[in-house]
């Protein structure tokens, strides 16, 4: 069983095999993710009761928390892939890191803006420069931008892969800082509601749509990652026979 799994993993790392695999599997992730998000948004907007403190304003949680979670998850995926690519020189791993970056950046942006839209009516402010949670999430956005800018600065893809991989791996230090900032330091931002060791401090009727949204976003992330990877793999392999065969420039 284990050997079978290892063999499948090696096979998956081969670009032509992965290209076909992604093409077959991605749509399912897209459909499931889309359905979960539609259900979660409906539950969050229409079914969940209003909060005893924040009224209907708390419904921003259903778009804020999933994108904030994804902004960090995408970074961990990017950094892990960059690490594997750097150490084992696996081409596909670098392609994964490159493809995860713009997705992560877009969700970091979303987490920041939805957070501001939530902060204004509840806290009384859009932004506080002294708050560790807010600033570390902004640093995450700049890490994504820095990663993409660094890549663009290189002529050769191999060098871009290696240099940007170092930046991605080093930047992973920021992820636990974001998560624990609300515990280590005093912040305006409240502590975690779901990821506590004891029972979540959110009522079940409000939790279910949130979980639907979080799973939906995760599936959607895999879908978008695979779609990005399809293009990225073609580009990186364009000299290879399987790509030339695929596009019909060689018999």
């Amino acid at each position, binding site marked *: 069983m284990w050997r079978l799994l290892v063999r499948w993993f090696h096979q998956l790392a081969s670009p032509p095999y992965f290209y076909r695999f992604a093409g077959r599997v991605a749509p399912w992730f897209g459909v499931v993710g889309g359905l979960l998000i539609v259900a979660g948004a409906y539950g969050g907007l229409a079914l969940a009761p209003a909060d005893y403190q924040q009224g*209907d*304003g708390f419904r921003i949680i259903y778009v804020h928390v999933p994108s904030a979670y994804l902004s960090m998850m995408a970074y961990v995926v990017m950094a892990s892939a960059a690490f594997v690519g750097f150490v084992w020189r696996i081409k596909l791993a670098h392609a994964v890191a490159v493809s995860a970056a713009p997705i992560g950046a877009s969700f970091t942006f979303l987490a920041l803006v939805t957070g501001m839209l939530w902060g*204004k009516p509840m806290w009384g402010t859009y932004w506080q420069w002294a708050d560790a949670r807010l600033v570390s999430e902004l640093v995450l956005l700049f890490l994504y931008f820095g990663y993409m800018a660094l890549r663009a600065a290189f002529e050769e893809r191999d060098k871009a892969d290696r240099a940007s991989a170092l930046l991605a791996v080093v930047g992973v230090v920021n992820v636990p800082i974001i998560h624990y900032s609300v515990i280590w330091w005093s912040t305006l931002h409240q502590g975690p509601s779901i990821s506590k060791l004891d029972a979540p401090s959110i009522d079940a009727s409000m939790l279910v749509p949130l979980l639907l949204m979080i799973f939906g976003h995760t599936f959607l992330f895999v879908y*978008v990652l695979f779609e990005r990877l399809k293009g990225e793999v073609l580009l990186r392999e364009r*000299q290879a026979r399987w790509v030339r065969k695929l596009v019909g420039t060689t018999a």
Partner: protein
Amino acid sequence: MSEFLSMGGYAAFVWPAYGLTLIVLVANVLLPRRRHRRILKQLRVGTDEFQSVSQPTVRHVP
């Protein structure tokens, strides 16, 4: 319905947050698909437009 839309007075914050999320999600779905299609087309035609956009690979001399 109008009660739902008013979001208990927080409409000015709730709806922009949901609207922006929808835009980012849709862009995340559409852009990679378009990029994949364009890459396929370019490779087919043979004019390697992406050579300049993304870095050229070092060609292996057999």
